């Protein structure tokens, strides 16, 4: 209780309030409404390929993960120090999670890919929360853009303004005749690109088929083409007429269920990709719009929410993948005897 009223905290609060009051009195240029585009915008040209901002973010994520893990595991000790200890905690927690779901034998085979997916998504989502992302980038001439206040005379560096404010009027000189620009952010969270999410979803679903075949062999596909009972109705010797009819009818239901399973495999691809895409894109839109409406402090709770959501979505993608792998390797529960 007394720590809240200590001089340090009160001083910090006083500074924050003073900054807010000064900024609103001086009418500093207001935050512009972010442009919300679903596809990723290309920001670079490299060897004839157009590089999008989400691709840059993906490369940054990869750089962090690869360099980080190399640096941490370079000189490993038996009694680990800070970074190695933290990494060991993370790896052990994830291994326990996967073993709890899959059992010891298969956990070792699932672990690398699901942990990669988890760490990649975690770092990528949290990286999208940095100030680097979504706020600076190349300007492009556009009809419905915003005016720009140039910082230097060669017009190479500028501030993208909210149209209709005093600073914007000063920058353009008049309503029409000023040049309007659209901002393409240089970096954008990787999971806001449908390419990334669909790719990860395809990897996950393709791997379920792979693990299923690895565990059960080709009969794994009997889950989708479930003609076992119908074949049995015609070919099994010693089955009476009633038995054959019964087997045929239930076999018909089996075929129907197999069809639904096939459709649901494709449904899994869509649900994986859209869950991740929607959560992260909605988070970005939310933060941008809240920042536009009330530029200071109010976006902090939403920032915390986005950190949580980024973590949960990575975790959910991983746990769902593990759950589907486990269902694939355990096969059908209701085989006939």
């Amino acid at each position, binding site marked *: 209780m007394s720590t809240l009223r200590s001089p340090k905290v009160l001083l910090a609060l006083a500074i924050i309030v003073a900054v807010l009051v000064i900024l609103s009195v001086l009418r500093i240029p207001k935050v512009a409404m972010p442009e*919300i585009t679903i596809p990723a915008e290309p920001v670079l040209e490299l060897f004839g390929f157009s590089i999008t901002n989400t691709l840059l973010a993906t490369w940054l994520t990869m750089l962090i993960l690869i360099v980080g893990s190399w640096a941490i595991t370079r000189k490993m000790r038996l009694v680990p120090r800070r970074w190695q200890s933290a990494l060991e905690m993370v790896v052990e927690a994830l291994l326990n999670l996967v073993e709890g779901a899959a059992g010891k034998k298969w956990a070792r085979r699932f672990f690398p890919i699901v942990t990669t997916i988890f760490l990649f998504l975690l770092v990528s989502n949290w990286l999208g929360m940095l100030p680097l992302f979504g706020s600076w980038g190349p300007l492009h001439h556009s009809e419905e853009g915003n005016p720009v206040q140039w910082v230097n005379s060669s017009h190479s560096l500028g501030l993208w303004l909210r149209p209709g404010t005093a600073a914007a009027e000063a920058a353009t000189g008049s309503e029409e005749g000023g040049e309007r620009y659209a901002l393409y952010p240089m970096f954008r969270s990787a999971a806001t690109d449908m390419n990334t999410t669909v790719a990860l979803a395809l990897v996950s679903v393709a791997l379920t088929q792979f693990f299923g075949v690895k565990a059960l062999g080709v009969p794994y596909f009997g889950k989708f083409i479930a003609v076992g009972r119908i074949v049995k109705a015609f070919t099994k010797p010693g089955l009476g007429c009633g038995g054959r009819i019964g087997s045929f009818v239930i076999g018909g239901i089996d075929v129907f269920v197999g069809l639904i399973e096939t459709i649901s495999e494709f449904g899994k691809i869509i649900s994986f990709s859209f869950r991740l895409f929607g959560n992260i*894109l*909605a988070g970005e839109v939310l933060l941008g719009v809240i920042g536009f409406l009330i530029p200071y402090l109010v976006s902090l709770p939403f920032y915390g929410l986005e950190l949580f959501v980024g973590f949960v979505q990575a975790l*959910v993608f991983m*746990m769902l993948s593990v759950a589907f792998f486990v269902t694939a390797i355990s096969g059908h529960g209701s085989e006939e005897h």
Partner: protein
Amino acid sequence: MDPKSVQFLASAIAIGLGALGPGLGLGFIGGKAMEALGRNPEASDKIFMPLILTMAFTEAIAIYALVVALIIKFVG
């Protein structure tokens, strides 16, 4: 009605109605989890993981609706 107004209206209806179902669902999930916790407070570690997972699944349905609303509003 001109297309722009219909666009706004469609976007609002998409997310508004689309959040009804998951909202109810999440409430049920949370309620059942609270009930289970109340019966057996020591099981909170075991309940936590499936709770978060189930909530993420249910929330995904609302996210589908949100994505449709965003696409309607900002594309075309």
